[in-house]
């Protein structure tokens, strides 16, 4: 953001706010909600709530195999959501979009299906030091089972990945490179395209944890070149209980099924079964149908705003947030400067613990998160047990940032 040009208004935040019923609520009488915890989960616009409500009121039926009207409508709604999501992330085909519960399940699916079929003792997986536990623990579990070696791209003191170290790790000829596109603590937006191209050059498969990037940035799997992309509906205006594993068609075709049961089969005999085609091969049992419909509506909502506009709005927001936080004596914000950062500010104060910060802010109606944000190794690396984290989305305003700053001054007053 160049200070000489006033920021271009890229989205109408007041119009957006009017779509989010929860933003009308007061946390306590006279104290309106200031929701700065969208990195944990986003709020939902009425368009999503209405799509799910409509589904349950008018259509509710199990999908597939039904030939009655409701079952056909339910199947059509579920598949339309899949197609919309496939377009949203630039997938070559809708069957490359597998519905799962969340990012965590998507990553576990890859670990157990692709991992067990393709990895052997001594094989190397490259991860980063800034992973959420959900892109770390499944690989630790698999490494223990198959005797794999885990290597980590270091995080620099500024909160960026050390790409020189990454290039050296590639000499180990890893079988898989798996990394977060955007850190949920530092906000760092990693150069995914470059990381993936380098991985492919040594024959590694790549998995992108898109839990934070898909909601906040334009993400196109073709441009990225990603083999797998995992993300959660609840962080991108959709409901909880629905998430996506995108996988490149040939890889998914070659993978063994993950969970066994109904819908993932073509034919079953007493002692054997044959596997259904994609994407159903990976969708055993009745899926979260209304939630898929809700996520379809969320994607439609985001697409109508335009992800470039979302990115630009949040970029201007984080630049403002950093500018305001840096004015406050003692505040330490973790992660890189605004240029490399999504709208996440994890910070500490010398005089108060993250819990106390968050508790005092709650009095202002401000919701921030306090803790290690499921990234304990990263906090250990920075030598801090916990941070307070304020995160922003399309419905947040600069006035809310100003309130946050006032609240932090109040914390300093109480604990100073």
């Amino acid at each position, binding site marked *: 953001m160049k200070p000489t040009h006033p920021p271009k208004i890229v989205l109408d935040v007041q119009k957006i706010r009017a779509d989010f019923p929860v933003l009308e609520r007061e946390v306590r009488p006279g104290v309106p909600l200031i929701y700065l915890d969208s990195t944990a989960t986003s709020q939902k616009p009425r368009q999503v709530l209405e799509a799910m409500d409509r589904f349950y009121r008018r259509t509710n039926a199990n999908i597939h195999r039904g030939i009655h009207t409701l079952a056909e409508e339910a199947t059509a709604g579920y598949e339309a959501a899949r197609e919309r999501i496939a377009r949203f992330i630039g997938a070559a085909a809708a069957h490359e979009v597998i519905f799962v519960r969340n990012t965590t399940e998507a990553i576990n699916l890859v670990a157990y299906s692709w991992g067990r079929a393709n990895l052997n003792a001594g094989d190397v997986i490259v991860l980063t030091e800034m992973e959420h536990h959900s892109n770390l623990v499944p690989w630790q579990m698999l490494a223990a089972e198959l005797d794999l070696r885990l290597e980590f791209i270091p995080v620099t003191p500024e909160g960026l990945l050390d790409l020189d170290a990454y290039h050296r790790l590639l000499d180990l000829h890893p079988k898989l490179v798996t990394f977060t596109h955007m850190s949920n603590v530092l906000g760092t937006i990693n150069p995914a395209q470059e990381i993936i191209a380098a991985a492919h050059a040594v024959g590694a498969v790549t998995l992108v944890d898109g839990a934070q990037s898909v909601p906040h940035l334009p993400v196109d799997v073709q441009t990225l070149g990603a083999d797998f992309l995992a993300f959660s509906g609840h962080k991108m205006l959709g409901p909880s209980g629905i998430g996506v594993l995108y996988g490149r068609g040939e890889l998914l075709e070659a993978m063994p099924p993950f969970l066994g049961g109904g819908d993932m089969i073509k034919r079953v005999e007493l002692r054997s079964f044959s596997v259904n085609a994609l994407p159903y091969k990976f969708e055993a049992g009745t899926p979260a149908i209304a939630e898929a419909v809700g996520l379809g509506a969320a994607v439609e909502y985001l697409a109508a705003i335009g992800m470039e506009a979302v990115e630009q709005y949040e970029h201007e927001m984080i630049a403002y947030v950093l500018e305001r936080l840096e004015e406050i004596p003692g505040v330490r914000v973790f992660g890189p400067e605004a240029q490399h950062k999504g709208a996440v500010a994890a910070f500490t104060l010398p005089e108060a613990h*993250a819990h*106390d910060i968050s*508790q*005092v802010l*709650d*009095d202002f109606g401000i919701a921030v998160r306090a803790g*290690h944000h499921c990234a304990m190794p990263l906090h250990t690396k920075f030598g801090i047990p*916990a941070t307070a984290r304020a995160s922003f989305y399309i419905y947040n305003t600069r006035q809310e940032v100003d309130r946050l700053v006032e609240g932090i001054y109040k914390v300093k007053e109480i604990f100073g």
Partner: protein
Amino acid sequence: MDDLYRELIIDRYKNPQFRGELNPNDITFEDDNPYCGDHIRVDVRLDENGVVTEAAYSGEGCSISQAAADLLIEYIHGKTLDEVKALTKEDVLDLLGIELGPVRLKCALLSLKVLKAGAYGLGEATDDLVA
């Protein structure tokens, strides 16, 4: 909030009376709160009758967890081991003099959990010690 941050709590947080480690000791135990990374160690010395003569705590955490630890350690001085084992959640809440939601309750009770696990000589500190 002004209730939650009573002067007593802020004062104990900023000016703790019983911070430190005792080496040697008769009882020592430490544990984390996995939800927030708070960490507390408690050390206790007993006389020949099993009465607490000295006690201290160390570690890090929020004002509630640290103030609760400071107040609890003060409170157990002169108590017998059996009395320490019999301490409850209500004792800690009485010392703090505030009401707490479920998350902050865990902060407040970490030191009691650690103390009781040590007093009973357990391998790990479990939530049922402070239920």
